[in-house]
């Protein structure tokens, strides 16, 4: 019902502004209510006509209407159908005596006696022999069921000519006794009418009850699975009550039946109150607390009946129950009419029409009971009520299925949307990735170009210059070797070393050793800690290139200008309390050089440039370069940063 509830505010746009403008609202109500009431009037007429048309016809050729009634010691002639006074004792019941003529030649088949309607029970005797006692038929004992009875008259009983038929009418109050026309005739002629009535008043209620019980189970399951929608539960309870009521054996005086069973027969007021509750909940309103008062009459009947025993429940039912049913039907009619005005949807229209039909049936039954309308005392309220419940239950189930379909559709839409979103996301992610890759590639290209420009390019140019000058041998070879070494360094730096600078230093050691070997210089390699220098996940190839170039420069200086015999490389990790940092020192035993006041080597221009380069490179990596030199050698100390910078600090 959540769906309906959700719909209602949307469909009553008049509600909020209505407070301020009462006139349009009244007009709106009128414009909606009048057609609805006209429709209901049409339905009332159709129901009345329909009920009249549906009135089962009886084989009038075999009707026996003239009887003499002996009651309380008085005998008087009566014409059937006939009402007798209500009584509460089954002793000495009213006795109807009549006669019919039997001619053996008329029919080949046997004869039967057929009683279309009576209340509450009959015992039929032909020529003093009992042929029918309806008290044995549980269905026949229900005054609301309109059960017909038929009994074959044994052929041996029938005499040629006049025969006597007596009908003892058992009545238990508070309803008046009633005996409809009795039919005696060939079985073949009576049976069809009997079958029609049985179908309408016995089989059909059973079918409805079965249907109701199935729906009760379905609705109960729905309610169990969706506790927040009590409307299913309410309707399920109403249906269960109706089913129990339909199958409980009716009490037949003087037989002692359980009081509970007799009380359950008076369940109609509770059922009707439940239906009102259903209506209120179904249309999305709150069930007011005082609404529980509606259950009071039914419960009173119930409790008093349990304590007092029959016939009290029957009397209370008539006095309290039936007016409650009527009240509930009127309330329901009002509820649906309000719903129609507010919502104008198919559900409220349908239920409203159904309520109107049941109401008409109930009014007709009331008129029958107080003998204003002669309907052969056929009650149709229960039948129409069952039909209504079944219709509502079927409607609810249909709605439930539709809601499931909507959920499916919603799920499908959701899946589609999620897929679309996913694809969009994927596309944008791919674009982003592509952009990032392009940016990374461009960065790498820039880096590579700078590296090649710094090293290889200069060296190749220098080779060209040397060759053009007609230089021979050593200097060109040196320049070419330097170029090759730099190319190897650039290639080597591209390799992913996972932040472990030691892996780059390992390759450098090999290259440096190869470089030093022809000069007969020993390379001492000392790694103070097993780890060497700390791991730097942020280490990028360009950091590696700069660091290795600093080391290369230091070694080259030692070889070329200091005439060192021994070069020591020391790799260590220090920790001054702010995290570990690596230190790489290159120490030689050469003759050293003088450092000017500004930290530049003044003696040799080339050395000075080399030292400046080293400082620049160190600064770009966030490292600190420390130079000390005297007559006993030179020491280059490179202190690595704790974290290498992301961008080139001295770029541009």
């Amino acid at each position, binding site marked *: 019902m959540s769906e309906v509830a959700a719909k209602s505010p949307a469909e009553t746009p008049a509600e909020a502004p209505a407070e301020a403008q009462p006139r349009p609202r009244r007009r709106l109500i009128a414009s909606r209510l009048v057609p609805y009431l006209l429709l209901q009037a049409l339905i009332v007429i159709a129901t009345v006509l329909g009920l009249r048309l549906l009135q089962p016809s009886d084989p009038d050729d075999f009707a026996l209407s003239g009887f003499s009634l002996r009651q309380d010691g008085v005998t008087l002639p009566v014409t059937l159908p006939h009402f007798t006074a209500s009584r509460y004792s089954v002793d000495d019941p009213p006795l109807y005596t009549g006669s019919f003529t039997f001619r053996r030649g008329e029919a080949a088949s046997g004869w039967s006696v057929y009683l279309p309607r009576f209340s509450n029970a009959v015992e039929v005797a032909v020529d003093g022999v009992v042929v029918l006692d309806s008290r044995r038929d549980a269905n026949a004992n229900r005054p609301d069921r309109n059960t017909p009875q038929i009994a074959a008259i044994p052929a041996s009983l029938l005499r040629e000519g006049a025969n006597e038929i007596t009908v003892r009418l058992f009545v238990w109050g508070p309803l008046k006794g009633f005996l409809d026309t009795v039919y005696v005739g060939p079985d073949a002629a009576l049976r069809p009418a009997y079958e029609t009535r049985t179908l309408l008043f016995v089989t059909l209620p059973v079918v409805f009850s079965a249907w109701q019980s199935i729906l009760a189970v379905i609705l109960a399951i729905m309610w169990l699975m969706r506790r927040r929608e009590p409307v299913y539960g309410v309707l399920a309870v109403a249906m269960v009550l109706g089913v129990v009521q339909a199958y409980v054996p009716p009490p037949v005086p003087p037989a002692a039946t359980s009081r509970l069973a007799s009380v359950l027969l008076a369940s109609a007021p509770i059922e009707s109150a439940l239906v009102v509750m259903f209506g209120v909940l179904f249309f999305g309103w709150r069930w007011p607390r005082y609404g529980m008062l509606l259950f009071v009459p039914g419960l009173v009947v119930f409790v008093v009946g349990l304590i007092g025993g029959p016939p009290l429940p029957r009397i209370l039912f008539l006095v309290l129950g039936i007016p409650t049913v009527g009240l509930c039907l009127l309330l329901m009619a009002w509820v649906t009419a309000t719903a129609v005005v507010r919502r104008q949807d198919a559900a409220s229209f349908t239920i409203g029409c159904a309520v109107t039909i049941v109401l008409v049936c109930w009014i007709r039954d009331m008129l029958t009971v107080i003998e204003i309308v002669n309907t052969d005392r056929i009650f149709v309220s229960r039948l129409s009520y069952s039909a209504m419940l079944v219709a509502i239950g079927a409607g609810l189930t249909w709605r439930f299925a539709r809601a499931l379909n909507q959920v499916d559709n919603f799920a499908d839409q959701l899946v589609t949307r999620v897929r679309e979103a996913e694809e969009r996301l994927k596309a944008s992610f791919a674009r982003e990735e592509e952009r990032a890759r392009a940016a990374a590639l461009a960065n790498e290209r820039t880096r590579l170009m700078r590296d090649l420009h710094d090293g290889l390019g200069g060296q190749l140019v220098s080779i060209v210059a040397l060759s053009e000058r007609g230089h021979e041998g050593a200097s060109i070879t040196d320049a070419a070797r330097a170029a090759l070494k730099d190319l190897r360094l650039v*290639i080597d730096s591209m*390799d992913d070393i*996972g932040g472990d600078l*030691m*892996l780059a*230093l390992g390759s450098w050691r090999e290259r440096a050793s*190869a470089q030093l*070997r022809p000069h007969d210089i020993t390379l001492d390699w000392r*790694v103070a800690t097993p780890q060497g220098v700390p791991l730097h996940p942020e280490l990028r190839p360009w950091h590696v290139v700069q660091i290795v170039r600093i080391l290369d420069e230091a070694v080259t200086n030692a070889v070329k200008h200091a005439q060192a015999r021994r070069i020591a490389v020391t790799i260590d990790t220090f920790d001054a309390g702010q995290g570990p940092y690596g230190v790489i020192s290159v120490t030689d035993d050469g003759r050293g050089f003088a450092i000017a006041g500004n930290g530049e080597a003044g003696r040799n221009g080339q050395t000075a440039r080399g030292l400046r380069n080293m400082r620049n490179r160190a600064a770009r990596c966030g490292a600190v370069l420390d130079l000390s030199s005297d007559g006993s050698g030179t020491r280059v100390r490179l202190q690595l940063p704790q974290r290498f910078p992301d961008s080139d600090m001295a770029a541009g």
Partner: protein
Amino acid sequence: MTEQGETGETITILLVEDDAPTCWRLQDALVKAGYEVRSAGTLGEARAALAAGAPRVLLTDLRLPDGHGIELIREMRQRFPDTEIMVISALGDEESVISAITVGATGYLLKDAFPTDIATTVRDLVAGHSPISASIARFIVRRTQGAAQSSAEPPPGPVLNTARLTPREIDILWGIAKGFSYAEIASHLGLSKQTVPGHIKNIYRKLEVHTRSEAVFEAVQQGLIKL
């Protein structure tokens, strides 16, 4: 001065290099060291030279005018399992050297190496030592790390099966990659210095793809053969 093997005969080297100056350079260095050197400029010449008999050492460039050095290495490995094979490389880049190692080469020789280094390297090789450079060791250990982390995407570069390497061998490779000497590695790992070259030989053997089908598969994987 003539370099001789254990049995006393002169050690023969087949040098396959298409660049003439490089070829002369290497040949000079080797001849000066006392080796008998036959040189070839193409795959065809190399095969023709093999007809005369198996050399003790094969030094080959990878890019040759009429084919790839990998083919020659594989043929050599099958026909003359006793021949030591080394790649000649300008840069010593892992890409080509690792491919050669998987078909049976042992390390590489830089084309610009100093003559003494060239002679030393070949002498060590003939003596049964298997030189391994820091960058090659690094490539191999990085590959073992990659295999341990996730095998969802094969790493770029040549296919290398490191599954057969023992933890000890991987430790040795780490040491070499970080620039430690054999002695330093031996002391770190509690080994005798003499056992390290043996381990390295084992590493080379384990990285080699043995069966013919495996070799073909690897070659196809590396794009050296087109089916």
